[in-house]
């Protein structure tokens, strides 16, 4: 047995929102939420993270599931994903595969099969890794989050979740309850990941794109990168450059150069800043081409 270096904590698993609220109101400080635990279990053991109260959210069964709300007059359709839905569920969901392909495409490349069975979408977002595989897809899908705390719930665009590596803007007693993807029928989306290995690795850079065309010209475009800064980022200059232009490989390559200019990657054990800057244009161009190929 490996020594438990992490400090001890009280563990609880509330079965209802009322119970959760009561626990949070009573606990003074040091609360941490447990979703799938695939990152947190290691960090708590090694002492990288510590808490006084570990609140396991798995008892809130309504946090799991994927459902579509059909479009109504004046209102777009949307897909709602409970925050404790496993990465594996995203991977195999036909609705997402058809209407938001970038997300299942990212999901199937996250960790190992065993990890994907435990890891959750909400956990991947709240862990706030700059290269979280589900982050870039959600950014290009215009996802928004429903947050919950004992004092009420609020909605934010996914973009406003992250502060920097490992840090979100969530309040200490706040959790992600639901992720909502507004549907856009004429949209092509894609995800790509660059890492040292084909499988089971953390990305050096990952990228997602979404594209819509009107009369052969780009009428809507989103590009997002992980690993290009201290949090997952939209590449807004590259997007602005492409808007209204024809969807050609040349334009995509130019957008890639712009994306590298608006990135500020750091050097880490995984790759140097220079390597990341050199690969951003290539990956950006490729992911745009892939999104384009999904349009027809």
């Amino acid at each position, binding site marked *: *047995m490996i020594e438990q270096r992490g400090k*001890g904590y009280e563990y609880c698993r509330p079965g209802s929102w009322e119970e959760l609220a009561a626990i949070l109101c009573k606990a003074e400080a040091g609360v941490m939420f447990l979703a799938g*635990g695939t990152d947190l279990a290691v960090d708590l053991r090694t002492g990288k993270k510590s808490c006084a109260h*570990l609140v396991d959210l798995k008892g809130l069964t309504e946090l799991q599931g994927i459902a579509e709300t059909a479009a109504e007059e004046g209102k777009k359709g949307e897909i709602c994903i409970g925050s404790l839905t496993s990465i594996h569920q995203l991977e195999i969901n036909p609705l997402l595969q058809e209407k938001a392909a970038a997300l299942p495409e990212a999901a199937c490349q996250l960790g190992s*099969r065993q*990890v994907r*069975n*435990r890891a959750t979408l909400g956990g991947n977002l709240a862990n706030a890794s700059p290269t979280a595989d589900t982050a870039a897809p959600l950014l290009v899908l215009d996802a928004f989050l429903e947050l919950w705390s004992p004092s009420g719930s609020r909605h934010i665009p996914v973009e406003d979740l992250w502060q920097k590596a490992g840090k979100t803007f969530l309040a200490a007693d706040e959790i992600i309850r639901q992720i909502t993807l507004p549907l856009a029928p004429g949209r092509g989306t894609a995800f790509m990941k660059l890492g040292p290995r084909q*499988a089971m690795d953390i990305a050096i850079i990952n990228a997602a794109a979404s594209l819509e065309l009107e009369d052969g010209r780009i009428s809507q475009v989103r590009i997002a990168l992980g690993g290009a800064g201290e949090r997952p980022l939209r590449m807004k200059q590259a997007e602005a450059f492409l808007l209204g232009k024809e969807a050609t490989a040349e334009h995509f390559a130019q957008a890639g150069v712009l994306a590298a200019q608006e990135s500020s990657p750091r050097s880490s054990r995984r790759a140097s800043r220079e390597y990341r800057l050199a690969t951003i244009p290539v990956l950006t161009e490729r992911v745009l081409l892939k999104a384009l190929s999904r349009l027809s």
Partner: protein
Amino acid sequence: MDKIKISFILNDKPVTVETYPNKRVVDLLREDCECTSVKEGCSEGECGACTVLVNGTPVTSCLMLAGQIEGDSILTLEGLSKDGELDKLQTSFVEAGAVQCGYCTPGMVLSAKALLMKNPHPTHEEIRRALSGNLCRCTGYTKIFKAVDMAAGN
């Protein structure tokens, strides 16, 4: 830190264990339940040696805390053989010579078992994908894939 009581189904039998909430499932199974087939390798969910099935799904037990398995059904290698008779999949591993040092074997067998329970006749590609989270550092994967092929009647 207070101990907590955890009840779950282990290899088809209900068990209740009193333990600390920060105990990992791999340690709980090895130390409190005598399931020493569950091996610890990397301790961070990369190698798959500690794979067990939770409600039929393969997971790495080094990434799970004791409290997380409350009410779940756990299958370890100990639960595969019945009355001293090896499961067909285990026999295939023996016959195909798919075991060298043996450390990765329990995890390999359980990942393969999860696949065969859902899909009794997987393709070679499906077998490769199902075992992609289990690393073997001895012998490579040819004989391991062959063992699963044999068990699937391919």
